[in-house]
């Protein structure tokens, strides 16, 4: 793995929360992919949130890899949601004809977890995101 500074993968119940802290180069991206997909199996996770809020640029290789990760995760039984794409990044991506394919996106981590089926922590706190 690339070390804790670049990416962190945290386990939260049935979910994995993967935060990318800084721009990754291609090989780091592949390491991240392999690590994440391996951890899905190890923790028997059912969902993955990939948080890219810290990124101010996302190139086509990065976007592609995120799509691949989502597809690999699906094959391993976990659903993936990408969260925290910044306004500038979002517009740059569509201007360059990139998108996340069929991978769902959400505003931030909280939304992503709500999307996956329940908010952070116990089910009893679910009312907070009733609209989501």
């Amino acid at each position: 793995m690339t070390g804790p500074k670049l990416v962190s993968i945290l386990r939260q119940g049935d979910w994995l929360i993967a935060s990318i802290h800084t721009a990754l180069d291609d090989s780091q991206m592949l390491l991240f992919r392999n690590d994440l997909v391996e951890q899905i199996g190890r923790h028997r996770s059912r969902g993955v949130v990939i948080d890219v809020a810290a990124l101010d640029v996302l190139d086509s290789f990065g976007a592609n890899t995120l799509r691949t990760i989502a597809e690999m995760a699906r094959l391993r039984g976990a659903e993936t949601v990408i969260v925290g794409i910044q306004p500038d990044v979002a517009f740059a991506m569509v201007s360059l004809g990139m998108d996340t394919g069929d991978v769902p996106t959400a505003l931030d981590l909280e939304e992503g977890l709500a999307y996956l089926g329940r908010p952070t922590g116990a089910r009893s706190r679910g009312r907070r995101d009733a609209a989501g």
Partner: protein
Amino acid sequence: MTERPDTTPPPPPLPRSPVNEEELLPQLVSHLREHRTKLRQEWAARIQGAGLLHAMTPQEMAAETTSVYDNYVEVLETGSVEALQRYARDLSERIIPRGVETHEVVGIVLLLRDVLARSLFEKYQRDFALLNRVLDAYEPAANRIANTVAVSFVDERERVIRQQQDSIRELSTPVLPVRERLLILPMIGVLDSERARQLTEQLLTGIRTHRAKVVVIDITGVPAVDETVANHLVRTVDASRLMGASVIITGLSPDIAQTLVTIGVDLSKMDTIGDLQGGLEEAERLLGFSVTRGDGTGTM
């Protein structure tokens, strides 16, 4: 006030005779101070004669001409236009809303220059060589003053215009939260590429600040779009989706619908609904709101 310090052109090279310059200007200034009342009245009379400044009352004019005169003489004395620049800007700020035109302001300053020059002619008429030197000292400074006032006035006007343009632009693409996590953007007027760019920026930042999940863009008030703008709109919708918000576009006119189909913009991923009402209903449905009319409150 200090936002544009470079508005005054650099002083022109002054072809003065070095010997007398030091004494001439103070002499000239004291002459102008001495005859202040008479010259100022003469000037005011000429302003009236030229039919300038009818937007102002005589009292206002008297006050303004006095302070312009004093400023003018002071600049002649000190050679520093900064104070005048400040004064001219203040003056412009006051008189532009009253409808004073550029030609009036420039005309007034030039009149003062002429009035003062005449009085110098009168005073030094006996000694032509001395008059020449006096004018050498007077003219460049006077021209600089005229220049400064005109430039300050035009700058102020431009600043007002820019400010108005900015506020029009800002008002033209409002981002309004209607419900928790629901934004509407009513667009009115022609969508050019500049406004489309602005729409994108406001929408995407609006989504983040309001944590919006659904955005309704209503383009009922937009008469036409071109291909660039249509593509921009599609990209904006895609970008919003990347940020986790869905966009509903409402109020496409038949003309716009035809344009979009003709130029072949791919709208298959766009969610369009006939009117704003339908758009809001759909948005509420997406967000899980259900709106019912309470008993006895509606009189319809």
